[in-house]
């Protein structure tokens, strides 16, 4: 995985901000729906919203294929409002949790990448 500061910071920024954005968009859905329906619809809406907002990050920090952690983070964060209904009340908290999901997804991807490189090098 990338070690240069420009790309590291770019990856963190993309993961955190786009996952927070996905959570916020999913939080706009009606809270009256059944949780399972809201989770699925929220995930679809959140991921579409991320696709729409992704191009500036793509241009600055890399290609579609390196946006895998962003997609993972936003997939999880867009299900947050349905799973933790209390988060809807405070958009600041929802954004922070969304950003946290993005950074967690980056961490998971980083670890998977390290393991894969270790396997290949061995």
């Amino acid at each position: 995985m990338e070690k240069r500061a420009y790309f590291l910071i770019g990856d963190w920024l993309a993961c955190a901000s786009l996952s927070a954005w996905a959570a916020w968009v999913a939080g706009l859905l009606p809270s009256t729906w059944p949780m399972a329906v809201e989770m699925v619809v929220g995930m679809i809406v959140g991921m579409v919203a991320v696709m729409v907002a992704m191009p500036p990050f793509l241009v600055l920090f890399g290609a579609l294929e390196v946006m895998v952690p962003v997609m993972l983070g936003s997939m999880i964060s867009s299900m947050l409002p349905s799973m933790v209904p209390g988060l809807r009340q405070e958009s600041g908290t929802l954004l922070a949790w969304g950003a946290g999901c993005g950074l967690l997804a980056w961490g998971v991807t980083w670890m998977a990448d390290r393991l894969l490189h270790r396997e290949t090098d061995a």
Partner: protein
Amino acid sequence: MTKKNASSRWDGTARFYDWLAFGAEKRWEPAKRALFGRMTPGKRILFAALGTGLDIPFFPPGQEMVAIDISAAMLARAAPRVAAYPGRIEARLMDITALEYPDGWFDQVFTSCTFCSVPDPMAGLASLRRVMKPGAELAMFEHTGSHYFPFNLLLNLCNPVCRHIGPEMNRDTVAHVIRAGFRVEAVNPVFLDVVKTIRAIKPI
């Protein structure tokens, strides 16, 4: 996607391509430099596909090669980089599935993010194999699908959208290379098992 569609899509993208690829080119520069460092003077080299020539600064100086692309607009944009290269690049408008070279012509073939976009990857690889000498080297920088969850799921999910606006995100290019009759020598991951370099040989 047909050959004509692919050509006109890349013609349409040519104007924005350098701008779109800004981050990706910077990010992949070290891996590409390492791969293209295998270019050997005196060998007959084919580079597919040249695009706007963004990879040319990563080529070692002093090489002589043929570089093809399916898009005339892309090649027109590549012209200044071709001219500035300290070596010789013959840039030609050509489809990878219909190479205008005799059997067994090239010693080395390089690709760079090519087989995510070739409409029929097996036909493209068969065509490359035909123009390569027995024992010739195929060196590829490609992005593919993943074999690992959840990355494979994400790439499969976004592929229906991505394939309409750009490349296919979930191709198994290594399997295609093997199926096309090459012997894979090395597969080195660059980012996960998604972005990778592949080195293969046309068996003697």
